């Protein structure tokens, strides 16, 4: 089973990853037992795919600079440095997540994407043939969700595979 976990820099998504590691990938270091009714088929351990999406920089109208008109179109250097910064952020997030997975001895692949998180995640699911998507949930109420947008909500309705929504404990006391 290929499990994709959507990661960003929020605590909720790391909680979701932790939950997945604790509940779906338990006892990974134990030798796989041959299941009785399988006729000698090997137990294939589930694999993990970590996906981090960075929002792409808008290529218009970013007023940078103290004096009006200094930079209404981000220059190439600005775009480049933002891209580099995003790559670094993505790499940091993914390496932190990867470390957590390595501690549990799970076969992990990382994926760094650019663009609108909702679309990128759904596309990645199809491209990588994921069987399950795991997302955290920020616990937004109905109104906030409508205005701020909810990646987990969008994915639950549009992803082509089953979606598992992990709620962080501070949502309900």
């Amino acid at each position: 089973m290929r499990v994709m976990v959507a990661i960003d820099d929020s605590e909720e998504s790391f909680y979701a990853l932790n939950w997945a590691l604790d509940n779906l990938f338990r006892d990974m270091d134990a030798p796989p037992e041959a299941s009785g009714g399988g006729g000698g088929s090997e137990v294939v351990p589930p694999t993990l795919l970590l996906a981090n999406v960075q929002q792409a920089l808008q290529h218009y109208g970013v007023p940078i600079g103290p004096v009006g008109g200094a930079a209404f179109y981000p220059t190439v250097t600005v775009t480049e440095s933002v891209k580099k910064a995003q790559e670094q952020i993505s790499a940091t997030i993914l390496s932190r997540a990867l470390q957590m997975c390595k501690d549990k001895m799970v076969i992990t692949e990382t994926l760094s994407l650019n663009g609108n998180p909702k679309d990128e995640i759904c596309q990645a699911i199809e491209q990588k043939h994921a069987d399950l998507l795991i997302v955290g949930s920020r616990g937004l109420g109905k109104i906030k969700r409508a205005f701020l947008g909810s990646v987990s909500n969008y994915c639950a309705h549009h992803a082509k595979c089953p979606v598992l929504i992990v709620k962080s404990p501070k949502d309900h006391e």
Partner: protein
Amino acid sequence: MATAEKQVMIVAVDESEHSTYALEWTLDHFFVPLGDSCLFKLVIVHAKPSCTSSVGLAGPGAAEILPMVESDLKRIATRVLEKAKELCLSKSVSDVTLEVHEGDARNVLCEAVEKHHASILVVGNHGYGAIKRAVLGSVSDYCAHHAHCTVMIVKRPKTKH
């Protein structure tokens, strides 16, 4: 390492094909590959609508059809659970608890989560668009936001070619 206590996974079933697909997918991915060493204890919950909520009218004659509606609903509930049990047995999953509760599916499922201290609730969904969902209501949406545990929504892939 001693085997830890199993976590509880609740799968919601009704008479639709979507929930049968959801149960089958869950069995195939979580229970069949691991056999006896699976990580979860399976509880299957069916929410039986109360007959008074199914029958909208409250005029003369309602009293007569209520018992018929009630027995019909009971029959559906039994059939749903039997089908679920058969599906589990066909996949060699024998440690299953089956439950029926009367009431609205949303509340029944959230209460079942509390009662069993479940760690996952699995629901199918009808694949409604946003408008249908707003009008008809969506149990999977409600549970995804209100259940006090992780929720897994299993969708039937649309087969339109």
